[in-house]
Structure formats: C-alpha cells, structure tokens
C-alpha cells in the first residue's frame, strides 16, 4: 500500500469543515484546536457536530486516603454531514484520558485540573483530525 498526501490538490480538505461544539470552555478549546488543525472554514463543505462528556478518576491514593493524582477521561462523539444537510455521512467517537498531580496547594491543583482538561481537548481534537484524514477519499 503506498501513501498519498492527504492534502493533495485534488481533494482540498483545508478549511472544508465547520465545527459546532458545546457552548462551554471545553467545547471552545476543542473547536479552536480543530480549526487550528483543519483550517478556519471560509466556505465549508461539511458540518461536524460535536458532543462532549468527561469524568474524573482518583489515582495513587496514599495510606491515609489522600488522592495524589487524578485521571481526566474524555469522550467526543461526532456527526459528519455535508454542509447544511441532514444526511449523516459518518458518526463515531474518540476517547482518551490525561492526568494531573493533586499534591500542590489549592491554586496549584485547580490550575492543574484545568490544564489537564484543556490538554485532553487538544489531544482528542488531534485524534478526530486523524479520523477525518482517514475518511478523506470518501469525502469528495
């Protein structure tokens, strides 16, 4: 199997996707990273609707029961449609986790949790980009 560039001139995907994400911080960060990686849509040919869920898991619990690390789990489910139409071309989910240390002061732990969530959105966006690259040829 030989590889062909995803962005060959024939099927220019750059700027082809209009992303709609939930109206909260994580949705904002996710959408920004997707637009960084796939281009801000001028005349989009596809709609990608995104929904988000995340949860926390306590890790590395010490003898006196203190949680020293947290995992942040995240799942993005996406629905790909031709721009402003109803026909669903593809839908699916991407999921992963990031983690942060909970051993700092109150401010340090709060910032660490925020940073872990932002990083999670960024890497989930990258996974979604890889999925869109894989769908490339079927999207003309």
């Amino acid at each position, binding site marked *: 199997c030989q590889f062909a560039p995803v962005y060959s001139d024939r099927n*220019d995907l750059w700027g082809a996707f209009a992303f709609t994400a939930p109206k909260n911080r994580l949705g904002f960060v996710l959408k920004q990273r997707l637009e960084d990686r796939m281009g801000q849509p001028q005349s989009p040919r596809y709609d990608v609707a995104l929904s988000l869920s995340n949860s926390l898991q306590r890790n590395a619990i010490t003898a006196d*029961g203190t949680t020293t690390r947290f*995992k942040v789990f995240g799942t993005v489910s996406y629905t790909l449609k031709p721009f402003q139409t109803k026909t669903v071309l593809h839908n699916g989910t991407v999921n992963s986790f990031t983690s942060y240390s909970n051993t700092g002061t109150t*401010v340090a732990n709060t*910032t660490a949790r925020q940073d872990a969530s932002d990083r999670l959105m960024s890497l989930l966006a990258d996974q979604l980009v890889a999925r869109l690259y894989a769908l490339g040829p079927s999207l003309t």
Partner: protein
Amino acid sequence: QEASPDLPATLIADSVTLSRDNTLTASGNVEILYDTTRLRAASVRYDQRTDTLAITGPITVIEGDSTIILADSADLSPSLQTGILRGARVVFDQQLQVAANRLEKVNARYTQMNKIAASSCQVCGPNDVPLWQIRARRLVHDVEEKQLYFDDATFRIFDVPVFYLPRLRLPDPSLKRARGFLTPVVTSTSLLGFGLKLPYFIPIGDHKDLTLTPYISTKTRTLEFRYRQAFRTGRIEINGAVSRDNLTADDMRGYLFANGSFALAGDFNLSFDIETVTEDTYLRNYDYTSKSRLDSRISVTRTRDTDHFEANLIYFESLRNDEVNQTLPSIVGNAQYMKRVRPLGFGTLDLSAEVLSLHRESETDGISGRDVTRTSAAAHWHNTAVFGPGLLARADLALYVDHFDTVQDSNFESSQTRVTPYAAAELRWPVASTGVGGVRHVLEPFAQVVWTQDSTDDVPVEESTSQELDEGNLFAFNRSVGQDQIELGGRATLGLSYTRYDPRGWSIGLTMGRSLRQEDYGQFTRTSGLAGQTTDWLAAFSLKNDNGLSLINRAIFDDSFSVRRSETELRYSGKKFSMSSGYIWLARDAQANREISVSEWIASTDYQINKHWSTSADWRYDSVFERTQNAGLGLKYRNECIEMGLSLSRRFTSSASLEPDTKLDLSVALKGFSTGGRAGQYAHTCN
C-alpha cells in the same frame, strides 16, 4: 374530572336480544365504552327500568391507561362508574396486582375491595406463592389522589405473615413523585456500627422536593436531608446531615453542600457550590465525600462562537491534619477572557486576558503567607498554508505579558512585569493509504521549532508546581501547567503519529515525540518527561474496537527504555460483562516531592449472571507496599416485584487519621409502588 352524566355509554356485541320486559341481552364479544373506561365481557343484560348492567364474565375493565380490572361477574351502572364486581383482580400500571373476592365501585373516585391480596410478583399457576404480598380486610383506592389505603394489613413473605399493620397507605404505581418511603438500607460499618437508613420523599408542588433520611445505628443518630428546587431558568440542590455520635468530643456535628446553576440573560451562566462542615473528620467518618479539601465557589461564564469569558471566586477549606489552612491560598479569584479574530482574513489572532489573585490568611513572610496577583495579556497570531505535495506549514508569533503583584514575600519585588515573545514554525505532512480489505492507514510526521528568550526574571510560582507531558501539550509554546512559569529557550520537537482503521471496527493509534533544546535550563524534574537538553520519549498507544474494548497507554521513557511514567487504562463493556481497569507507575522523583515510586492497580467489574442476578466488584492494589488499598463486592437480585442489593466494601488504609473500615449495605425495594420504579426487563416469566 368526572365524565358528564348524560354522556351515553356505547354497547357493541355480536348479537342483541330486545325482549318485552324492557331488557336488552347482548352476547358475543360484548364491549361497553364510557369516557375513558372500556369493559369487555361474555354477555350483558341491561335492564332499562333499574338502569343496571348484569354482566357475566370473564370481564375485563380497562380504566384510563393505568388500571385493569378482571372479574368473574358484575352488576354495574351503564357509566361503569358504580357497582359491584365479584372475584375481581385489579392490575395497576402493569405492576401491582390486587385480588379481591368483592370489588365495589363507590363512585368515579373511590373503589373499595374486600379480603384482598396485593402483590407485584409474578405468580405462575394457582399453587405458586408470590415472593411477597400484602393481605388486608379492606383496600380503598382513591383514583384522584392515586393512593391505596389498606385496613388490617399483614405483610407476608412466601405466604408467611411477617408483620401486621392496622392501617397502611401506599401510592398507586401511576402516581409520579409520590410522597412516601424510598428504599430502606440496612448498613453496618466498623466505625458507625449496625444501623438503618430509611429515606422519606416529600414532593412540594411540582418543582420542589425534600428527602429526609433518618440514619439510626448503634453509634450515631443522624438525619440526612436533600432539598431540590427547579426554577424556570435553573435549579438548586442542597444536601446535608446533622449527627449526634460519640466518635469525637463534639456532641453535634454536621455538613452542608449546596449547589445550583442558572441561565442569565445574554448567554451568561451563573453557578455556585457551597461546601462546609463543622468538624474535619465528619465527612470521612460518614463517607459523604472523599474530598480532603472543601471548595465553595461562585462562577459566571459565557461561551460564544469566537470568545469565552469566565469569572470565579473560590474559598478553600482544608480538612487534612497535616496542613495548616492559613498557609494555603484560601481565597482565589480569577477572571479570563479569550477571543479569536481573523485580521483582514490572513491567519488567526487569539487574544486573551486573565487575572488570578490568591490570598493567604497567614501574615508570615514567604511562601506560607504571601498573596500573589497575576495579571496577564497575550496575543498569538498563527497561519497555516498547504503547499507542495500536501505539506502543512504553520508559522506562529506571540507576545505574552505577565504582571505579578506580590505581598508579604521579601524574596520577590512587590510588582514585576515580564514580557515574553515567541516565534515558532511547524511542518506536518499527513499521508494516508488504503490497504487490503479497506484498511485505512494515516501517517503524520511533524516537526516544530519554537524560540523564546532564554532567561527571565524570577517570579513567585504558585500554579506550575507540577509538570505534565502528553500529546495535548507536546506542541504548546509553554508546556508548564500554569502561566506563571515560562519554558525557556529555543527547542525543536519532532514526532510521528500513525493511526490504522480497520473497517471491521478496529482502530490502532500510536503517537511518539520528543524535544531537543538549545540548552538545558533545568526547569523540569527528572520524571516530568520535559527534563534535559534532549527530553525523554513520549509515547501514546491506543487500541479500540466497536464492541466495547478500549486499551489506552501513555508512557514516558528515556533512550535506555527506563520508564519514568506509565499510565494504562483497559476497558471493556459488553452486554453481560463490563470491566474497567487501570495501572499507574510514577518513578521516584525527589524534586517532585515523590520520595517513593507509585505503582497502583485499579479494577472494577460488573457481570449480569442472568436475568435476575448481577454481581460487581472493585479493587485497588498498591504494588509498592504490596497492600490492597480498598476492595468491594456487590450482589443484586432484581425481578418484577423486588430489588435487593448487598454490597460489602473494605478500606485497608491504616494511618494516624484513618482506621481501616468495613462497610456492609443491604437494601430491599418493593417494586410496584411508584417509589419502587419499574421493573419491566427483569420480570421473571413462567415456564
């Protein structure tokens, strides 16, 4: 509401005989319809003079969409609202069945049944005994209030009388938000002894409710409460408890957690949560939360297409006995605004402004007493162009300005301003191919060069006291956790990501990367993955398929493959069996005040053995100290009329402030009354 009396009842039958003595006899699939009631019977004799229907069975009466009455014979009014049914069996909401030898419909509202046996358990054949039943001399059903009133009731399990109640009131299953007892729980913990929790639910109108749960045990008298209220644009929920026990010197202890969120005008959202407790060990003794620091917060946020605003005010309170509240930042206020614009349609400009202000009660000089306010502004322009054979080239220019106001820390000037310029270039070359059977391969090599100044003045670092590296910040300009520390100097970051999609539902992903710095500025600890002139390798692997399997691992290791950090998550969710397990390894790192390595296994499983029985287990094992942290087992039996749950959990921790604790919970819920919930899929069938 009552149907208007002059509405005629309609009778349909295969054949009708009108005879001289003013009677009408209908036979063959007889149906009588009146308002929302429908009666089916073998034959009906309607005597015009007495205006009554003499009905011979088998009779089925369907009232509205929730009550079905079966009877052998009956004498009813044409409106089917009043009269007597003999050998009746009433089925409420397809769940609760009441057998009575005589059922009298007093009027459209009240139905009275005599010598009844009520149960929601499936009975197969005449000599099969229901798991539980309530026998009573009389049962009155108030259709309007949807309540069932029993007189001289005995509760029987397998037909053995268990207890007697002169009067008993239960909500009929179709009543939503019924006032009454929820599922009682028998609980025993090594700390609080053997006890009972009996929750009582009180609906207040359509938008408010209060649940009071007395918890009486050998060691405590506790009243737990939950109050909920829904508003047109939001809701609030208040949870709390008050206890008298002899575990501590206090004669009364309690906690209050309240939270709420409201939609404000102009797409703004307000949310608040208050967490307070009267004594530090209370929440842990009663297992109300595992938090060791409480945070009360009020936040206003608004997110639109191209901008995001948030403002938070947080008050922290530590419950740990190894830290002093005054030396922790207890009051933290922060506001942040992020805006994305497209200047003249060329590239993208991200503007952001932020204020973070923290306050410590203690007045001592230095880290345990200082108050710091950071005010930051940033402009970050970037543009990406596609050129050549599908290459993606991106250029970035950014300017970060951070101003620090420090109080009570002589090591730092009271106000400092730091200006940090960035420049970066990134090259990506995504390529893809289609293999045998439609397998798609996506390969994307990437390279990035980042430059910033290689020295900066020393500022108080409050946020970036931990360090993380993953695919989410591999390409960030400043890979510190917070904005107070800047990653110095020029560096190159190289890497590769590969994804394989198999149309049969499998996908495999691998991402690897590392950075090479001009010079090692010693900003990062040994196991952070960011240390050294040549950083460690970051590798992330994922394997997923469509029927529920997901394996994710992220590791940081050096060239000799000694692993600094590895976190793995294996999950499987099938129809009958689901499992989620994880392993975490953090190498020892004195700089990150981790004296001993961390190696911890977690596993939790759920298994549906058959239609009724299901088990669950969870387990946490520390393989450095070779000790189980905590473990739990659960067993649940569910059928159409009962739900029983047994759970055993043990916390093995042993330390000054925390004794090992074993907890046993047993809960029994009778299904068929509106508080018991529906049980359709668990109903057992007669074979």
